[in-house]
């Protein structure tokens, strides 16, 4: 674990963020000048996404020459975590593009606004996974989150959407307060402001002399991040926000916040806390157990599909956190879990946005009753994603659970293993229920044939194929996640 300090300004390292901001500026011009036709906006934003992907690719080149290094006066970091995080966020943008574009198109006169908010939030989260410094981390988190608050309430005519936005904003601000308070406490007690400095400072003064305030500070910072991933007991916003927000945006909102926060958390634990991780064992175990049990308890009797996925998100956050909080190999297993989960999550919300086809936030399980009759392809892909979430073999969900549990067992965290396995059994009950309603149950109800665009069909096929591919041949992705933590062993 060496950090090459490089005070030089290097634009390549923040090029994904810059390219997203550049897209935002062009989109802004589109609004203030003469009314731009829709297709131009579409192509501008899509090229923005592709440009970002290309820039992420450039960052890999930079990493291969410089290695793990910091730029901009130790503000911005280029390491495997930031690369994985950037790639993940860029791919989330690419894969959710069709759903958020469709919804934005429907929200009249606010199309550009929505796109700007989405790209802003993506740039914020990109910055967040890149930052070495807690202040930068906070700025990135806020840019990302505030855009998401607005995005949740974009459908102003809908009361649920307003409620979602307000709730998200109020609870999110509280979490931000806790986060920045944690930074302040850490700074007061140890005079440090960087991720790498925590480790150095604690080594320097010795573990026994570390003031309690700094531990509280670290826990507050972690709590701020756990709020974003909706781990219990910080999950209260998730069901309402998922339910209320325009359906096309939820996939993006859920995936991007989870990806960025977990990557930052993973880095925090691998880089800063790895030698004092056992001090936080109780805290993390409590959060994991609360998340998986609470999530499973609430998910069993949900009648709203989006709320069901929200609570399943709470469970999955618990799973991911259990690995991250165990150690370096756990981080690699959890990253595998995170990536496969995000693929399934994005897939599910793509299906939802295709089915709902409108802005309505209402999405009851009974709405998809009889879906299979006329929409076979959609139902099959939906079933694959749900089975992936449940962790059935032949899907990536099984491999990720297997790797995670193997690592947890190696770390001798038997209590967590038993709780997680218990939740997996319960999971089969509520993950199979929507499939039952959509495909198995005999019903008079028929969901009309939905005309799938070629792009949507391709997208769903790619996501479903990835879910099965990583379930059959997980080697590549496991190697990538191993590579991510290799430099920190």
């Amino acid at each position, binding site marked *: 674990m060496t950090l090459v300090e490089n005070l030089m300004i290097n634009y390549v390292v923040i090029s994904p963020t810059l390219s997203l901001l550049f897209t935002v500026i062009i989109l802004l011009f589109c609004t203030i000048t003469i009314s731009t036709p829709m297709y131009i906006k579409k192509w501008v934003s899509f090229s923005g996404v592709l440009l970002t992907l290309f820039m992420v690719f450039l960052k890999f080149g930079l990493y291969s020459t410089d290695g793990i290094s910091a730029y901009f006066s130790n503000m911005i970091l280029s390491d495997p975590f930031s690369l994985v995080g950037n790639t993940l966020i860029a791919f989330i943008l690419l894969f959710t593009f069709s759903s958020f574009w469709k919804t934005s198109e429907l929200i009249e006169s606010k199309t550009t606004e929505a796109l700007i908010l989405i790209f802003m939030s993506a740039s914020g989260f990109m910055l967040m996974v890149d930052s070495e410094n807690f202040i930068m981390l906070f700025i990135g988190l806020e840019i990302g989150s505030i855009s998401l608050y607005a995005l949740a309430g974009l459908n102003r005519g809908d009361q649920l959407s307003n409620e979602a936005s307000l709730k998200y904003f109020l609870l999110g601000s509280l979490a931000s307060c806790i986060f920045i308070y944690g930074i302040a406490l850490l700074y007061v007690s140890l005079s440090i402001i960087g991720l790498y400095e925590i480790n150095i400072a604690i080594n320097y003064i010795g573990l026994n002399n570390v003031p309690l305030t700094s531990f509280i500070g670290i826990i507050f910072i972690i709590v701020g991040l756990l709020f974003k991933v909706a781990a219990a007991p910080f999950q209260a916003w998730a069901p309402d926000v998922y339910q209320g927000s325009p359906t096309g945006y939820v996939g993006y909102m859920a995936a991007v916040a989870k990806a960025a926060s977990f990557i930052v958390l993973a880095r925090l634990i691998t880089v800063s806390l790895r030698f004092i991780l056992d001090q936080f064992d109780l805290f993390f175990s409590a959060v994991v157990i609360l998340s998986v049990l609470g999530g499973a308890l609430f998910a069993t009797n949900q009648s709203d599909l989006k709320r069901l996925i929200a609570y399943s998100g709470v469970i999955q956050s618990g799973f991911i956190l259990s690995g991250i909080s165990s150690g370096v190999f756990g981080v690699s297993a959890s990253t595998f879990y995170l990536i496969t989960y995000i693929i399934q999550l994005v897939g599910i919300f793509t299906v939802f946005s295709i089915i709902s086809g409108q802005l309505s936030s209402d999405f009851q399980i009974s709405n998809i009753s009889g879906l299979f009759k006329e929409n076979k392809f959609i139902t099959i892909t939906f079933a694959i994603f749900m089975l992936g979430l449940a962790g*059935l*073999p032949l899907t990536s969900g099984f491999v990720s659970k297997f*790797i995670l*549990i193997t690592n947890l067992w190696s770390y001798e965290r038997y209590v967590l293993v038993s709780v997680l396995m218990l939740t997996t059994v319960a999971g089969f009950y509520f993950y199979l229920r929507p499939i039952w309603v959509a495909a198995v149950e005999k019903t008079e109800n028929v969901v009309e044939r939905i005309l799938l665009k070629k792009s949507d069909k391709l997208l769903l096929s790619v996501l479903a194929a990835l879910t099965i591919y990583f379930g059959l041949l997980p080697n590549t992705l496991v190697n990538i996640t191993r590579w991510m933590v290799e430099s920190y062993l």
Partner: protein
Amino acid sequence: MISILFSLLLVPLFSAMLIFIIPNSRKETFRPIGIAFSLITLTQCVYLLFGEYAKTEFKILSTFEWIQSYGINLHFGLSGISTLLLLLSSLLVFVSLLSIGKDHSESKGFVGSLLMLHFAINGVFISGDLISLFIFFEALLIPMYFLMGIWGGENRRYATIKFILYTVFGSVFIFIGTVYTAVISYGVNGKFSVDFETLSLLSLLESQSKTLFLLFTFGFLIKVPIFPLHTWLPDAHVEAPTAGSIMLAGVLLKVGAYGVFRVSIPFFTEGFLAYKNWIAILSVIGIIYGAIVAIAQIDIKKLIAYSSVSHMGFVMLGISAGGFLSIEGALIQMINHGITAGALFMLVGFIYERRHTRKISDFGGIKISMPRYAAIFLFTSFASIGLPGLNGFVGEFMILMGSYNSYKILTSFAAFGVVLAAIYMLWAYQRMFTGPIKYEENKNLSDLNSRETASVLPLLLLMLFIGVYPSYIESFVIKEAVILSDTIALFMELK
């Protein structure tokens, strides 16, 4: 040989996909295509029967890299009992495709699910490591879920969810056992490899062996099912469509017993020795309990379901007795029960299609309107009871004889199971077939047509063949039974 091994997986998978691709306007082609592909698999299995691996212990033939950095590979191989079970499953898929009625055979999902089920079952029997075993063990659930959920009876939702949750609950223990074994294997070999060859060389502490035996066996015994864990089975059987019942009784129950035989006992023998008495006691309770409950049933399908509990109790008794003869008998009984229970469920399916009822009291005297059906049913019943000269006798006799050395009192009780079987099967036969015709509707029942006769005929021939020439089927399992009983004897001596 390796190419046949993979085609056992790929042919059913490919045929299922083919069925899904064919448009619904050509729905009359579903059954012929399914039958053609299952015949291919059946032919391959028959070829395997004469191959070099049909009479050996489990040999890993092919390795397939899965997760490199954890050192986990997938292994596939063959042994005597695997070959027999593969043959049995292919045969049952073939005959159930032939036997199902028009509303099922012209449904894309039904035929496709059946072929997917075939894929998963074949996978279980050729798996050479714990992970691929677990993958296919769980993958069985999804086609079964659709078969029972979509084409099941009135109360199918309850039965399906019960079936899924029971099995998943059991497989969680297998999963944890697999992870535990992998971690132990990592401590010895430096990689998480759990293939059967590595496991047989792994030396475990007694406590580890006991824990692992309990974890694996609990999961497998739910699937068998053994006495207190059997409650999902009657519900599942009653609600499942005929083809689902045939596969469930014929092959899926064997997956549990196969798991105990293949994994729990050879690798965790110390644990087996510590707990074998309990398994034997539960098996005998299951034999007697299943038979007594079967007597009291008014639903013929439920009767056969409880008789399965009883017959599978014999299998578990034979395995847990651990002697050479009893293990051999248990393996043969697995095959025999697959054939007879499959045939019985198929026969019940035929009459259900005609009358849409399964209540015994709704029939009576139908021997007059359906003579051929009655003869076949009686023949199968005799096989199920264990009449000498038919297959049921061979397995149960060997089990009872082999177990008597280890468990004198238990085996004496188990022998009553055979008598009770005669009571429930023959009494049911008497109420359904003999006497005058009680109801008007039963007067004009059409006898089995040639398709239906053809689909049950292979099973009848096998019953007779195994019954009169048991040493042929014995020659396939003898080596494995010897090896396992030697292992058990070795560990007993060490103790």
